[in-house]
């Protein structure tokens, strides 16, 4: 089951640019929370701060407090340890090009020292089933490389790979923006089912998508969290005028 996320006074910088300002947010466990906003508003940066991917960029840093379940992300535990317990799916599907489908899904486990073949088989099957890819690849997963699948399949493979390590939280950075509508639909279905076991935070520039899959939505603008509420409220009766302007398409 998923856990909740508590964000307090999160600030992030790229060199001198203050990309995120004093973000405070609480993400509900076992729900899907969408993060929306115009380009450059900091939504990707926000999500990448949750699993400390932000600091992999040279000259980038973040301060504040993030608690995921009982883990304090910025104090005490190494970034690598944090990332093992949080799954991430990126904008452009990025399966490991030299590995087979099977090895891709098992990568998170194998690279962290787990080699029990029988259990790996089980976990790989389970993960591929969760991401609705099992039927399509079960016969060829040892032979075909991860890169030989279609875009939508690759993204589902990346989701399976992230699921294999049993994260408590799944972060998705615009997972469908590089995919066609049919693949997008399949992945949105997936997110729906995943909600039962995981807490999901999804960045999206597609407002319809947010209203389809997420119970809660946060609206970001210029590095600040403008409004955070139930999706229904954000889209029908937002409290802040800026939110309303964005929703109605006046900018962004």
């Amino acid at each position, binding site marked *: 089951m998923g856990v909740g996320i508590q964000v307090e006074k999160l600030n992030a910088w790229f060199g001198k640019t203050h990309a995120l300002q004093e973000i405070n947010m609480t993400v509900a466990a076992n729900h899907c929370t969408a993060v929306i906003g115009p380009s450059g508003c900091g939504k990707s940066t926000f999500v990448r701060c949750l699993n400390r991917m932000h600091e992999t960029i040279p000259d980038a840093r973040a301060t504040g407090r993030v608690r995921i379940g009982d883990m304090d992300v910025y104090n005490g535990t190494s970034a*690598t340890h944090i990332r093992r317990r949080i799954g991430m799916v*990126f904008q452009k599907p990025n399966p490991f090009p030299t590995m087979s489908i099977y090895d891709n899904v098992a990568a998170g486990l194998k690279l962290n020292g787990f080699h029990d073949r029988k259990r790996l088989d089980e976990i790989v099957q389970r993960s591929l089933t969760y991401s609705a890819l099992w039927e399509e690849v079960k016969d060829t997963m040892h032979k075909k490389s991860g890169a030989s699948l279609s875009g939508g399949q690759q993204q589902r493979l990346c989701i399976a790979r992230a699921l294999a390590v049993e994260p408590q939280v799944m972060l998705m950075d615009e997972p469908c923006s590089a995919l066609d509508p049919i693949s997008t639909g399949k992945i949105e279905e997936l997110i729906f089912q995943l909600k039962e076991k995981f807490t999901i935070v999804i960045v999206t520039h597609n407002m319809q998508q947010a209203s389809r899959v997420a119970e809660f939505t946060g609206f970001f603008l210029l590095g600040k969290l403008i409004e955070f509420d139930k999706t229904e409220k954000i889209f029908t009766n937002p409290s802040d005028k800026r939110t309303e302007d964005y929703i109605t398409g006046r900018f962004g």
Partner: protein
Amino acid sequence: MPDSTTSLVSDFAAAPISFGRKLKNGLATGAAIAAVLLVLLPLGAIFAYLIIKGAGSINWDFLTKTPKPPGEVGGGMANAIAGSAYMLLIASCMGVPVGIGAGIYLAEYGRNRFGNIIRFTADVLNGVPSIVMGIVAWNIVVAGHGFSALAGGVALAIMMIPIITRATEEMLLLVPNTVREAAYGLGVSRWRTTLSITLRTATSGVITGVMLAFARVAGETAPLLFTALGNTYWNWKINKPTAALSLQVFYYATSPYEDWIRQAWAGALILIVLIVFSISAVRIAASRGMLKGAN
């Protein structure tokens, strides 16, 4: 001095395409073609002569026997071929790990001023005459322990390192950052990511770089002249003089014995075949393997 724009205007726009201009154009094309032919000529001649003069002498004896005393007919270069391979192996043990390591450093940690210094130094090292490497290896190894295969290996290793370093760096940089990010996102530590993911993705490219270094270094003679020195017998001891194919070709070619000169051509042919083979293998691997890896 008229600036470019005005001279362009006066040269082109004002005058129609005069015969003079057409003539110059034609002459330029002719000159370029002539240059190409003049350059291809010696290339063709070299290969032709190597084959004509050398192919006939490559027989089982040549490949399995050691040299006969001067003046006598027969014998072969077996020990020289083996010696070259032996020293390449010694050189690789030192040069390949260091070269790849330096390449990893430059690609993954060295995108800064300090990395630029190393990059620049590697390029400078590439341009140092190989005979100077021989002097250095002589000082380090031969001065204390005599002429040896190790000394030859050291000289060759120093030459391999900058080539492998730059090639490794280029190949690692071709691996898209998204691949690294995928690994970080799974909680794989940085060192593990670099070795098991990034380097693995770039493997064929790195092998390419190593083979290029081999091809370059296999034909080197100057640094071996006073390090490995050469040997008319088989030698597998690392601290004794060793024969090398390039050395043998040099000694034979500059000797007054007909039979040795004949063998020099044969040895040269073998050497060039091995080198061309490595380079072609590299090109084929590059056009197939790399695309598979980095995309």
